[in-house]
């Protein structure tokens, strides 16, 4: 990527807060990253990490009591947060699209598939219904759905879960967007269907140069698909690097803990049936966040320095793209398993 090329998406210090009865929750707390054209970013975290809300904030879909309260979301150089609602609506569905975990969040159960797809096409282009239908059929074929004509005439409930998700993805792809945000789209699907969808996404991204943010809690899915990985914890990115850097050489204790908890990862280091390395403690309560590092209460390496909030730094001079938010960097070394 040349320096002159504007990145598809650049987030600068995004802040989204939820004002609830019990207090203010900093759900997204200063998230920054850059996504170049044609690249795939895996945004990984567990529940409560703020990864989904980050996706919604980019799309402008955060509902009250949540509000985007700070930072910039630069889409091809223009700040989405400063735009009017009408301008954002023009971009959504056309240049930026979102895929949700539950396809029924996209599909209206009382409308046929073709009605919904034609509606999406005509919302952004004035084309005839016939032309719109042809575009819909072509996009469905791209998603590997045979018999596109029949699928178009069906209602969502007549399709299986995997097919519904493919239709939802096809709707997202109708206008060939420059950016797709996918929020756990395959989590609820079977392994075989998941593999099919991942394979199709891969091909599409490669063919069209679409940038993709894949939000997931599943590191293994992201490992196969993504170019870069950003790990989120309590609303902040704690580690960001290429997929090889983050998975082969994790620096942050949380990332190391996540990888260590996976049974499949343990097969190389432990015998089957032994205890998994677990991260002690529980997910953080956003109402009672400690000053400084959010992970400190659960971290084996925590020290007095952790009372100040760490910034993202590059631990290795030879890998400047690999950034970590921690004062105690270094490989796992001789830590005892939990």
């Amino acid at each position, binding site marked *: 990527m040349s320096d002159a090329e504007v990145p598809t998406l650049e987030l600068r210090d995004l802040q989204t807060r939820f004002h609830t009865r019990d207090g203010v929750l900093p759900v997204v707390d200063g998230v920054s990253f850059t996504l170049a054209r044609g690249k795939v970013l895996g945004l990984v975290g567990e529940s409560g990490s703020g990864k989904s809300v980050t996706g919604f904030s980019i799309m402008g879909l955060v509902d009250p009591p949540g509000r985007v309260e700070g930072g910039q979301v630069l889409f091809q150089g223009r700040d989405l947060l400063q735009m009017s609602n009408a301008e954002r609506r023009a971009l959504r569905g056309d240049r930026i699209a979102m895929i949700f975990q539950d396809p029924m969040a996209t599909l209206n159960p009382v409308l046929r598939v073709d009605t919904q797809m034609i509606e999406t096409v005509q919302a952004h282009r004035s084309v005839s219904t016939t032309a719109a239908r042809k575009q819909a059929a072509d996009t469905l074929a791209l998603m590997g759905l045979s018999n596109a004509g029949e699928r178009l005439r069906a209602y969502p409930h007549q399709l299986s879960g995997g097919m519904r998700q493919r239709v939802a993805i096809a709707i997202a792809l109708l206008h060939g967007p420059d950016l797709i945000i996918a929020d756990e789209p395959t989590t609820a699907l079977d392994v075989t269907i998941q593999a099919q969808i991942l394979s199709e996404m891969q091909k599409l991204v490669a063919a069209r140069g679409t940038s993709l943010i894949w939000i997931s809690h599943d590191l293994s899915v992201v490992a196969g698909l993504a170019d870069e990985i950003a790990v989120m914890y309590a609303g902040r990115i704690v580690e960001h690097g290429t997929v*090889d850097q983050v998975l082969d050489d994790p620096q942050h204790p949380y990332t190391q*803990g996540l990888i260590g908890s996976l049974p499949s990862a343990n097969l190389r280091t432990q015998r089957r049936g032994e205890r*998994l390395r677990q*991260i002690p403690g529980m997910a953080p309560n956003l109402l009672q966040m400690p000053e400084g590092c959010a992970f400190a209460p659960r971290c084996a390496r925590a020290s007095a320095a952790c009372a100040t909030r760490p910034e993202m730094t590059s631990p290795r001079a030879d890998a400047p793209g690999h950034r970590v938010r921690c004062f105690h960097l270094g490989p796992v070394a001789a830590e005892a398993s939990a």
Partner: protein
Amino acid sequence: MSSSTTLPLVDLQGVSKRFGAQPPPGVVGRTLRRLGWSKPPMVTHAVDGVDLAVRPGEVVGLVGESGCGKSTLGRIAAGLLTPTEGHVQVDGQPLHDLDGDARLAARLRVQMVFQDPFASLNPRLRVSRIVGEAARLHGLTDAAGEDDYVSAQLQRAGLDPALRHRYPHQFSGGQRQRIGIARALAVQPKMLVCDEAVAALDVSIQAQILNLFMDLRDELGLAYLFISHDLGVIRHLCDRVAVMYLGRVVESAPVDELFARPNHPYTRALLAEIPRIDQRRTAFNTIRGEIPSPITPPSGCHFHPRCPQAFERCSKEVPTLRGIAIHHASACHLNDAA
């Protein structure tokens, strides 16, 4: 591994389960059908002629995707559903021969841990009641000792007993799952059926719960029927695995054997398709087609429409589950040809 002469705790023999079947229609019903005014009921063949045995202290894994019937089979093993055909034996005695106290005892011997930590606990009851009600009812503890008994169960499941007067909504997903486990342990079972018990949990919590299962197996000598779609978890936890597809067991083997030398084409495809953390930017292998509906399963071998190695015998004849190596059985016509 226990020797095969030990009496199995739970023995399912030729078990089938169909939903939606109605008694054959009388004259009026038949006439209506012939006229096309009434349709035969849609029968779901959830489980089709399955043999499964779990011995004391053994961890048996049941793997498959949606529609394979593993949840139904698990409920039959736990006594929550009665099979349409076949026998269930608990501790060597056929279940339907028992009545009254003996039946209750058999039921308590096999307890279930459910998938959804939010739906499996009654939101209106306090945790102390949820865990202690059955124990108190069946005389495992008396009024005076109930509080201590409940505290002991909670502690065994890794929860602070001081929290026992709270309501389920005040706990996180992982903690609720522990409450469900404590509830199961309170009636002193010999076997736990875990129906996707960790699927809804975050990875770090999942590791904690899996470790808990392993600890309980070591401390109490519990047997497990562990139902999951996650092969990584199965590989880590189980001694033996049975792979199901559309209501039938297609392969069963000790776990190392299954992963090293999978025989059935479906098992092979399943293993090839699971995303793994060390596979980066791979081309995902896929098997074509969708999982058929259990209402209209394909003829002969259920897998033949998607099998890359199917030949004409596969659509005509149902393959039987036969031994192909020590303790390793597979249901595939390809084994006959060899």
